[in-house]
Each structure stands twice: as structure tokens, then as C-alpha cells.
């Protein structure tokens, strides 16, 4: 400590000097020696004394001591609160974890449910045809005014299952290599409103509209079950299973090229009645044709009509029936000449 710097000190300076404050408050031996020496050489003794006196007065201020019980009680209280907070934190973290994992599981379940039940749907409008390649490589030719629906996760589920409305020609890829053991994934299922069809790998035409449900086989073998009559058959090529509103499922001989001529845009007729052709016209083009003479409906036709456009069909029919085509916004009339 340098005594010189204190020579010019005012009372205020002394009161702000940490060394001096410490000396007055604690006054240990070393400090006392220094300040006693200083007192003897000081020129500003008055300021020094005044500061010393004031500081002494300040240090008479009563201290407030903390009771020991206060310290221990408060500590216990604090520790308890801290423990509680920590528990709350852990509980809420656990709660958060369980809620979020539950939500994740629920989302997963919903997603898998959705994926399992999600379907791909292909629809054709009137006058429109579509070729659909299924995930297994099987091909479906979809006739106009029809739809097929198949599972999105076809590959994962190994379930070849198609729902059909209207008419389609199927070329099913054969997956089974062991005829004795047929696995579920080898089967190809087609459901229509009335028919349940199971195949392994074949080509066939299915139609289910209006009064008639039918399946005609080009090659391979087909199991067909009527969901209406409960009748069940195994079809051979060139056979057709047919169910109408009047008749339960039965097998008839049928030329498959006639049944799926529509794929190439034709309609083959073998003593086919005009009313049946007009029904098909309505199915494919969505338009009803009115005949001016009801007798025309029973006229039978042989040969092939192009079904590529509605106009062509009407033109051919009008010629055969010797009639004129009259159209207004809602109806088409074949008016006998």
C-alpha cells in the first residue's frame, strides 16, 4: 500500500477506498500497523478521522442473522419442490412419449389399413375402350361403359383380385408351376355382380350387365360360381357359362371369337336378333334406339357389324331394316321407310 496516495484524500475518497473500509471493519494486525503509521504522517488527518468515524457508525448497523431452522426448513422445501418438478418433467416426458408413440402406431395402422384396402379403379366411358396392364402383367381389355377395380398393394399382398362392372376380356398370366400345389398367389379372381371366377392363367371374356352375366373361355380352364343361383362349373375352352334373370347358370357352346369380337371393334352375329344388338348398342354407346315397328326387333341378322362407331352401327342396321335414322337431342329412331 502506498501511503502517498492517501495524502490528498478527502473524507469521501476515504469512504470509497476498499483498503480503508476493510481496515475499519476488520482491522487486522497488518492493516492496523499501516494505518497507525499513516495517522502519524498524515496531513489530512481531519478527513481521515471523519471518514473513520462515519464508517464506524455505518458498521454499527445491526446485522440480521438467519435462524438455523429457517435454513434447514427452506432447504427441505426447495428440495421437495425440485424433486416434484423433476417428477413432473419425467412424467410429462413419459406421457409425451407414450402419446406420440400411440399416435405413430395409430397412423401406421390407419396407413396399412388404407394401403390394404386401397384400390386402383379404371373406368371407361360410353364408346371408350381401354387396355389395362395389371401389376402381375395380366392384361385386361375393358369395353365401354365398364370399370375394374384392383388392390393397390397387389404385389405385396400377392392377391390377384379384380372386380368388374360391365365387360372385359382377360389375358391372365400363369404363375403356378406346380398344378398339385396351388398357392393363393397363383389364383386370379374376378368378381362381378353375379359371378365369382377363379383362374390360374387363361383368356376369357366376362360380361355382367342388365339381364345377362356370362363368361366365355378362349383357352385354359376357369372355375365359375354364380353368386345368385349358387351353381358352379369348370369351363373348358369354347364353352360359355351364362346366367340370365330367367335362367340359372348353365353351360352352352360358344365361339369365343364371337364373344370377344368387340375387342377388335366388331360384332359377330349368328342369327342375332335386332333387339339384342340394340341392347349392346345402348350398353356401349349409352343411347337407346327406338324402332318405329316393333316387329323389327325380332329380325335376325348374320354376319359382322363394325362397332367402331355408333354411326356405323346405325347405318348398317338402317340398311338391313330398310329404315331411316332420325335423331333428336334425346332419342334415336329407326323409322321404317
Amino acid at each position, binding site marked *: 500500500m502506498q501511503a502517498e496516495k492517501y495524502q490528498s484524500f478527502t473524507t469521501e475518497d476515504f469512504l470509497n477506498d476498499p483498503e480503508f473500509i476493510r481496515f475499519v471493519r476488520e482491522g487486522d494486525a497488518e492493516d492496523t500497523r499501516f494505518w497507525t503509521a499513516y495517522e502519524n504522517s498524515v496531513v489530512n488527518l481531519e478527513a481521515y478521522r471523519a471518514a473513520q468515524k462515519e464508517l464506524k457508525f455505518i458498521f454499527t448497523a445491526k446485522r440480521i442473522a438467519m435462524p438455523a431452522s*429457517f435454513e434447514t426448513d427452506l432447504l427441505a422445501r426447495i428440495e421437495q419442490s425440485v424433486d416434484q418438478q423433476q417428477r413432473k418433467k419425467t412424467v410429462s416426458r413419459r406421457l409425451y412419449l407414450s402419446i406420440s408413440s400411440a399416435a405413430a402406431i395409430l397412423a401406421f395402422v390407419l396407413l396399412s389399413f388404407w394401403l390394404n384396402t386401397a384400390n386402383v379403379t379404371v373406368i371407361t366411358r360410353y364408346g371408350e375402350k381401354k387396355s389395362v396392364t395389371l401389376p402381375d402383367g395380366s392384361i385386361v381389355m375393358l369395353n365401354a361403359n365398364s370399370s375394374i377395380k384392383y388392390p393397390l398393394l397387389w404385389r405385396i399382398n400377392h392377391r390377384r383380385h379384380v372386380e368388374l362392372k360391365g365387360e372385359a376380356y382377360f389375358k391372365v398370366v400363369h404363375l403356378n408351376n406346380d398344378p398339385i400345389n396351388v398357392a393363393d398367389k397363383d389364383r386370379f379372381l374376378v368378381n362381378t355382380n353375379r359371378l365369382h371366377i377363379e383362374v390360374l392363367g387363361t383368356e376369357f371374356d366376362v360380361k355382367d350387365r342388365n339381364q345377362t352375366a356370362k363368361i366365355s373361355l378362349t383357352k385354359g380352364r376357369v372355375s365359375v360360381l354364380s353368386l345368385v343361383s349358387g351353381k358352379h362349373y369348370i369351363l373348358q375352352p369354347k364353352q360359355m357359362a351364362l346366367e340370365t334373370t330367367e335362367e340359372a347358370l348353365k353351360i352352352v357352346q360358344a365361339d369365343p371369337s364371337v364373344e370377344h369380337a368387340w375387342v377388335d371393334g366388331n360384332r359377330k352375329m349368328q342369327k342375332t336378333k335386332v333387339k339384342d344388338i340394340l341392347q349392346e348398342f345402348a350398353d356401349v354407346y349409352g343411347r337407346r334406339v327406338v324402332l318405329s315397328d316393333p316387329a323389327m326387333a325380332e329380325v335376325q341378322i348374320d354376319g359382322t357389324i363394325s362397332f367402331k362407331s355408333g354411326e356405323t352401327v346405325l347405318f348398317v342396321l338402317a340398311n338391313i331394316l330398310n329404315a331411316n335414322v332420325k335423331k333428336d337431342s334425346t332419342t334415336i329412331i329407326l323409322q321404317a321407310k
Partner: protein
Amino acid sequence: MKRQGNASGLWLSFTKGDRDAFTAIYNTYVGALYEYGMRILKDENQVGDCIHDLFIKLWLNHKTVRKTDNIRFYLIASLRNTILSYKAKEDRLPKEEFHNPDDFVLDFNAESAQVNKEESVAQSRRINDALDQLTGRQKEIIYLKYFEEMSYEQIADLMNISVKGAYKLSARALDALKIIMNADKAVVIWMLIHYKSQIF
């Protein structure tokens, strides 16, 4: 004054979630906090509540609490804020209207101080004025400066005033004290008895 040798180490351990360090901090500084709190609140239960809240808040925020080398100053400053919000809540005052405690207990022992023998009514009036002028804030600054050994910078920070303001406040407090100190012993004792509840 107690100085924590490895104060910053203790604080660091605490910020890392060390419960023992937390308890050690409590044990080391609760006495100082109690005394300071009592001087403002004068109520042991309220002081207990405030210190409790302060330490709970500290523990909850131990990860984000700022680093400090001076735990003592940090805690006293935090306690002061805790007390101010506590009082503001109690008095239903918005916090910004309540920057400082309106009262601060600091009892000097006039009897032991040297007092001169002169007697006069004028002097007693001077003492009266001086005691009135020795506000809560002046007493607080004297306490912080001479008992907590804070620098003017720390005091300014703590009391929300400028450093210049802290010097001024301290100087005026010391002037007022000088007057009280130099007054007649009897008058001072009389003053102490009559004004104790309001002033000291």
C-alpha cells in the same frame, strides 16, 4: 466477507445439473439472501417464499442460466427481482411501476457512535430532516456498498440506475449519515424510538 474459492467451478457444476452443487450454492449464500431479503420485506415467510421461488427457477433453468463468476452478486440481484415481482403481484402493481423497494431496514447503533455534547433544537430538526432524507434506497446503497462490498457498477446494475447515479446516491446517503451521527446522543435515541418503524 465469504469468498467462494471455486465459485465459477461450483456454478458450472450446477448448470450441468449437479444437485450437490445446487445445494452447496444454497448453503453458501442463503444467509446473505436472508439478510438482504429481510431488510426489504421484513417478513420471514415472505423472504422464505422468495428464496424458494428463486432457487426453483434457478433449478428449472439451470441449463440456460448465464455463466457467472460472482454467484453472490448474481443471487442477490436475482432475489431483488424476485422480491420486486412478488411485491408487485401482492400490491397489484405493474412491475415497471415498482422498480425499487420503498423501504430498507438498516438500524445503526447510535449509542456506540461518537456524538458531541452540543444540544440544540435546530440540530434536532436537522437530524429529523436527515433521517427523512435517508431513504430506503440510500440505506440500501450503503448496505450493498459496505456490507455486500459491491462496486458502484454492480450497484447501478442491481438498482437499475446509472453508475453516476449510484455515486450520487451514495454520497448523499453518507452526508445524511454524517448529520445523524454528529447529532446529540439523546436526540438520536429519541429519533430512533420515534421513527424506527418508518425510517430505520
